[in-house]
């Protein structure tokens, strides 16, 4: 669950960054409930297209959200009644009943939280009266109680928002990360290497495994193209916001005249399907190895164990040469191929839904410039949400700063999802 996860990660890691989102001339605190103010301030620049992150309070102040919650509560009660009564009366079909039952179990935690929230609201009204009591001790007590209530309300609201955001099919997957140098020659390749390292750092930061599949270097230590298989809890769910064109602005090491260059690289994030959810017909594959010519077997001893697999119907290719074992290379290439084919399939489904969004996922996102790393100004700006953080060097470690940017993207994406649910695609107004 989106919001909650972020909050938990912050709590667990004792990582409490005070975040202010300056939006126009208004200042609001993000979704998180931060009890500490601390280390770093993040500024978001002029937001694009009027997009901005709303606070929990602002969201709950919206009539549309309140109505939506009421509708869900009503639906829950209706389903519950039906499920309880039809056990005796057999009014609806077995299938209908099953659907209602799963709806009940799906909505139960949400409705429970909504009711708890109502209770807390009542409690707070009761304490209001005590706050005006003449006894200073009683007043102090009431104050404490009210603070506690406010805190609980905040938590419950957060919980409700979390429960509203549906899980996506691919969110539970592992993934394949691909980096490819774009415009800018050697400099672009050097930057590609740094970005690949950044995600390696991000994976380590989260305790995910990071297994290199392809790694094609350039002459001076850059990277033309590389891919890695990443797996661990929520790995895809978090990294999916990283896909797109990343732009670097700096004076390259290779530059003699000290001129500033702008180069790009592309990140693609492909969810890794499970064996069950996605199958490939072996007949559609052509496997190339170094052992294709001659008699093979005992009569040949090679160390080149590279494997390339071509999916004939689509022409999609995956290769691996990272391992000394040919079988391992084949397994890894197969893994990459599955992810490539799966994401093609997935995009057909999701592209329509994501079309209107600012935080893009999939092919469309891949061709769009999402982020700029400006070394001269020591800043990183994400163009989708107009957020800027400082300290490029720390950002490239793939630790707290990237985490923070990533969390904001996630919050923003969640908000977009929520607005869609509420039928409010217009993000501008409040």
């Amino acid at each position, binding site marked *: 669950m989106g919001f909650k996860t972020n909050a938990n990660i912050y709590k667990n890691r004792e990582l409490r960054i005070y975040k202010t989102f300056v939006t126009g001339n208004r200042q609001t605190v993000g979704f998180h409930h931060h009890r500490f103010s601390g280390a770093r301030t993040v500024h978001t620049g002029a937001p694009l297209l009027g997009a901005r992150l709303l606070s929990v309070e602002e969201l709950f102040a919206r009539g549309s959200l309140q109505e939506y919650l009421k509708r869900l509560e009503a639906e829950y009660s209706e389903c519950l009644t039906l499920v309880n009564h039809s056990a005796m009366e057999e009014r609806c079909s077995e299938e209908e009943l099953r659907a209602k039952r799963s709806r009940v179990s799906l909505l139960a935690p949400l409705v429970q939280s909504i009711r708890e929230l109502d209770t807390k609201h009542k409690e707070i009204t009761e304490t209001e009266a005590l706050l005006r009591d003449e006894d200073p001790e009683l007043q102090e007590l009431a104050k404490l109680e009210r603070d506690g209530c406010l805190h609980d309300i905040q938590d419950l609201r957060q919980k409700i928002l979390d429960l509203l955001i549906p899980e996506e099919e691919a969110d539970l997957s592992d993934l394949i990360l691909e980096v490819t140098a774009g415009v800018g020659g050697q400099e672009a390749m050097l930057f590609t290497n740094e970005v690949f390292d950044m995600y390696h750092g991000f994976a380590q930061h989260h305790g995910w495994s990071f297994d290199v599949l392809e790694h094609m270097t350039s002459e001076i230590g850059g990277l033309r193209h590389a891919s890695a298989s990443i797996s661990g809890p929520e790995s895809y769910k978090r990294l999916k916001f990283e896909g797109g064109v990343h732009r670097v602005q700096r004076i390259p090491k290779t530059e003699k005249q000290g001129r500033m260059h702008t180069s790009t690289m592309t990140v693609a994030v492909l969810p890794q399907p499970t064996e069950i959810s996605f199958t490939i017909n072996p007949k559609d594959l052509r*496997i190339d190895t170094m052992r294709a010519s001659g*008699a093979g077997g005992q009569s040949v001893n090679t160390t080149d164990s590279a494997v390339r697999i071509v999916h004939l119907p689509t022409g999609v290719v995956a290769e691996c040469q990272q*391992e000394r074992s040919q079988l391992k290379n084949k397994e890894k290439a197969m893994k990459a191929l599955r992810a490539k084919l799966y994401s093609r399939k997935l995009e057909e489904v999701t592209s329509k839904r994501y079309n209107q969004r600012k935080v893009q996922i999939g092919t469309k996102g891949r061709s769009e410039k999402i982020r700029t790393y400006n070394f001269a100004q020591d800043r990183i700006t994400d163009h989708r949400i107009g957020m800027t953080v400082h300290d490029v060097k720390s950002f490239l470690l793939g630790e707290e700063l990237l985490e923070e940017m990533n969390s904001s993207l996630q919050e923003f994406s969640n908000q977009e999802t929520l607005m869609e649910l509420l039928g409010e695609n217009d993000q501008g107004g409040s």
Partner: protein
Amino acid sequence: MWRRSLGAGCRLFGCRSAVPQGIWGSSAVRACSAPVLPALSITALQAMDSWRKHFEERGVPEPEESSHYIMAHLFGAKTIQSVEQGKLTEFLSREETEQMWKLCTRRLSRMPVQYVIEEWDFRDLTLKMRPPVFIPRPETEELVELVLTDLETMCGTEDALDALHTCVEVGCGSGAISLSLLRSRPQLKAIAVDQSQQAVDLTRENALRLGLQDRLQIHHIDVMKDPEAALSLCTRASALVSNPPYLFSEDMSKLEPEILRFEDPSALDGGEDGLNVIKQILTMAPKILSDHGRAYLEVDPRHPSLIQQWVEVNVKELRYVETRHDITGRPRFCILQKRELIQGPRVGSGLRN
């Protein structure tokens, strides 16, 4: 093929080196001696590039891979890609340079890379390699895959059932097949035999390194000379696996020097039709296997049909199940199964015919 190049960046080497060009020039090639150690410090990239060139000049196959693997080995890594980029552009220490020169000089004599660095990967195992013990080929990884898939269909995924099963391997070499099976099936037991003492020793060493020695019996037995010794040790096995010598004798002389000069010919030469050891194994198979037990062989692509015909005539207790192909589509693996012997008087009457 599509392998990337780590080269370049090393063009400076010629200017940097104080050693006259002539040393690596034609005179050295004619003398066929090892290139002289560079007088000045060089980086890993430069060392690899210069050795790639030597290998190329001397016609050593896989010149780039060879220099990469040897360099990676010196850095304690498996592949050069997994070595930190920065390390490759740093200067090597004197000892590292000397070691690189020593190992690459061995490769120059056409010693296989696997022997030079004394290890190689087989499936998910890293095995110690030592001449003249046969270096496992990638096809054999597929043979193991085949056996594992079959074992799973026979015994399911439950480990407990494996405890009842034993695999027998004839010609274990470095131990690759048996050790892979044991690693993948934590309750399975195996018996491995080989005619070479060096192979037996290496299998034992690899088993110890992998902590699999408790479930593996290793015996120094030549099944051609003393089949009885093998039969007395191995009975009622669920599976008999072998990558026996299967090359045709006439093809032996055409082998690359890597194989011909360094690997044990008795692990490769299968006689005139490559079937000598295969026939012996199949003759022994019914006595080694339990009912419905299976034999899995890696063979030459010309063999499967010959084996099927031969077994039908000569080993009635075996049923030829099927031929499987390797990754390149060559008929490479044979599966045979022991028929269930029909007990009771009907057998007797049948035999009288």
